[in-house]
């Protein structure tokens, strides 16, 4: 199945991309996606356990994904 990974701000810089279409196994979790992204990116700026949102809502790293999910890696927020 396919999920879309969104990267923002410093994470987009670290990985060098802001959107990645990822092919993952059925039953894959957020954690699996993070591990895959870390293989692509610059690990010193992408922490092992970034905050994550699935389909625009904060989610835990144990969250099981479904085909078509939008997984966003959220750097420390700094609004205001």
């Amino acid at each position, binding site marked *: 199945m396919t999920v879309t990974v*969104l990267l*923002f*701000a*410093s994470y987009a*810089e670290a990985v060098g991309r802001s959107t990645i279409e990822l092919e993952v196994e059925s039953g894959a979790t957020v954690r699996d996606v993070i591990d895959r992204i870390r293989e692509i990116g610059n*690990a*010193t*700026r992408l*922490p*092992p*356990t*970034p*905050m994550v*949102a699935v389909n*625009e*809502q*904060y989610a835990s790293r144990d969250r099981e994904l479904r085909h078509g999910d939008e997984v*966003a890696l*959220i*750097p*420390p*927020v*700094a*609004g*205001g």
Partner: protein
Amino acid sequence: MYSSIVDHPIDVAAIIERVGRAANGAAVLFLGNVREVNEGLEVTGIEYTAYRSMAERELASIVEEAAAVGDTNDVAVEHRLGELVVGECSVAVAVGHPHRGRAFETARYVVEELKRRVPIWKREHYVDGTREWVSAATSKPETQLVDIGDER
């Protein structure tokens, strides 16, 4: 209730107007402005970016929560994105309430939750031409943070 992410300068008078009703004896407004110095570094401007659809959603949730907790529908917030120079307003929060204590508390709630949850990021531009993503939790440029695991 009103919440919006905008790309244009914030009209502060319009935000205040949104929470003014004849039943409200008090209005509290919070303005976040671009500071000239952060952690000793001289700043020329800030670039705000967001996960826009989620930011809009979170902002709307916060306003709803604030309205419920504060017992008023007169809650408004606007956050600006893009390139801002020193002194410009990045965020405005306004709360109208019959009683002043509640107006203060509700405005504070919106500001704190916004800074905690809304996926917006800022990159400071310094006088020496460099730019850095800033972590709100520490106010420090992110490159000064050590990668030690879960940030929460």
